[in-house]
């Protein structure tokens, strides 16, 4: 447990040395607002779906930002050569890894909560009291699922492209195919099938159910699906190869 906390603390510190507070706060506040606002207003202009559809979709969609953090951390670690050092150290690697991941999960949660708060306060989204727990769980699942994607990206980044570029690529594919802005039914058949493999699709759908007043049980199957996808990625990328 101590190892867990210490690792989390140090990666937190490393993160913040990189991000001096001012730009970091801008990033935190501005990015969700702008992205959410942009798509919500396009959605409103288009009139294809109710406003809440776009608000919930994009609030959960901000989870994709976590992929940046995780993949960047993996890439930085490798660049600094500390990853192999850590892994070679006798300390158990699972707590070390989860120490890091917990940080990014927290980071992603803050992002989404900020986005949801903006949706509620600026755009008047209504979340039924009964749905709050469900929405929070959906957010948690979304972040964990995206963490898996981030790890995968961090691992392949150096072969293909710069990490940040790759994370951007992935972020857009996920945003497009997860149904955050476009109902899956509108996508061509093949693409819609691929969309089922995207580790955010079900979290978005579940969050929409909860905001729409569904009971917690109604979305649980969807959430378990995304959780399984995320867990699979996590396991694959943390197991020694």
């Amino acid at each position, binding site marked *: 447990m101590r190892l867990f906390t210490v690792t989390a603390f140090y990666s937190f510190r490393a993160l913040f040395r*990189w*991000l*001096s507070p*001012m*730009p*970091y706060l*801008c*990033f935190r506040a*501005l*990015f969700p607002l*702008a*992205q959410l*606002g*942009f*798509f919500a*207003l*396009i*959605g*409103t*202009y*288009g*009139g*294809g779906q109710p406003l809440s559809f776009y608000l919930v979709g994009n609030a959960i969609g901000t989870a994709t930002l976590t992929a940046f953090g995780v993949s960047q951390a993996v890439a930085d670690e490798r660049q600094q050569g500390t990853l192999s050092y850590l892994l070679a150290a006798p300390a158990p690697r699972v707590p070390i890894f989860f120490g890091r991941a917990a940080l990014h999960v927290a980071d992603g949660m803050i992002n989404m909560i900020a986005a949801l708060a903006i949706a509620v306060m*600026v755009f008047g989204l209504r979340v039924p009291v009964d749905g709050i727990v469900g929405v929070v769980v959906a957010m948690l699942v979304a972040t964990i699922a995206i963490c898996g994607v981030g790890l995968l990206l961090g691992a392949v980044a150096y072969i293909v*492209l*710069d990490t*940040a*570029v790759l994370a*951007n*690529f992935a972020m*857009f594919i996920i*945003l*497009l195919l997860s149904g955050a*802005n*476009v109902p899956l039914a*509108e*996508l061509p058949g093949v693409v819609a099938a691929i969309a089922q493999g995207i580790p955010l699709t079900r979290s978005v759908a579940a969050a929409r159910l909860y905001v729409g007043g569904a009971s917690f049980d109604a979305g649980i199957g969807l959430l378990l699906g995304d959780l399984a996808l995320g867990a699979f990625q996590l396991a694959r990328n943390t197991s020694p190869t």
Partner: protein
Amino acid sequence: MTAALRLARQSAWVNFQEVAVNGFLLFAVVWQPLFVGVTTMYMLRHRADFDPMYVVVGTALSGIWSTLLFAGSGAISHERWTGTLELLAASPASFFVVIGGKLAGTTIFSLGSLVLAFGIGTVLFGYPVKIAEPGWLAVSLLLAVVALWATGMFFAPLAILWRTVGRFLLVLEYPVFALSGFLFPVLLLPNWIVPITNLLPPYWAAVAMHGAASGDLDLSGLLRAWFFLLLTGGVLLVIASRLFVEVLTRARRAGTLALS
């Protein structure tokens, strides 16, 4: 003046060779507009008065803006990374001209976004291309590039002052998309924001481009948009040139030009 233009051109050429193969440009020129274009095409086609050209133009504008934003912060981060930022600062050349040239050079790439945006409309979605006023659209495009370039120049000095800001300049991507009416009318924004949008050159770029593409604006309307585009762009450039000087002085005071 000719000396400045010459230096700007050379800077553009150096920048071209140094960062042309940068993955970020690929992202900004191709990927970002592809995502925005496809997504908004799906989102806006439910409208009764849907015009695919609206999405094509808006997508092109968003691609140009992304390119300039990435290129601006990218060029400065690159100088810092190679250690040439200090050499530039200690040379008698004007930073404004050097960075201006580099940014202007990358606008060439942004034409890629335009082609791509047309591709999304015609190839991917199979819509016919109908440009109401191709000539006026070309003029508007040229001026739009100038407007977005001026806006990019306004933000670039921040990347000189703080290393981290360089990496975070991309935060300005969506706000400018949203405030400029690239893909939805600014009237949908909260009332108090609407006057602010009128101060931004990208807003006038969007007005002119959409107006010329759809034929909704007559020549006098276009001339008005062009006028305000140049006016707001000029003001921003004047402020930017002051900012460059100010930011360099601050960096010399704080000692932040070196990578350390």
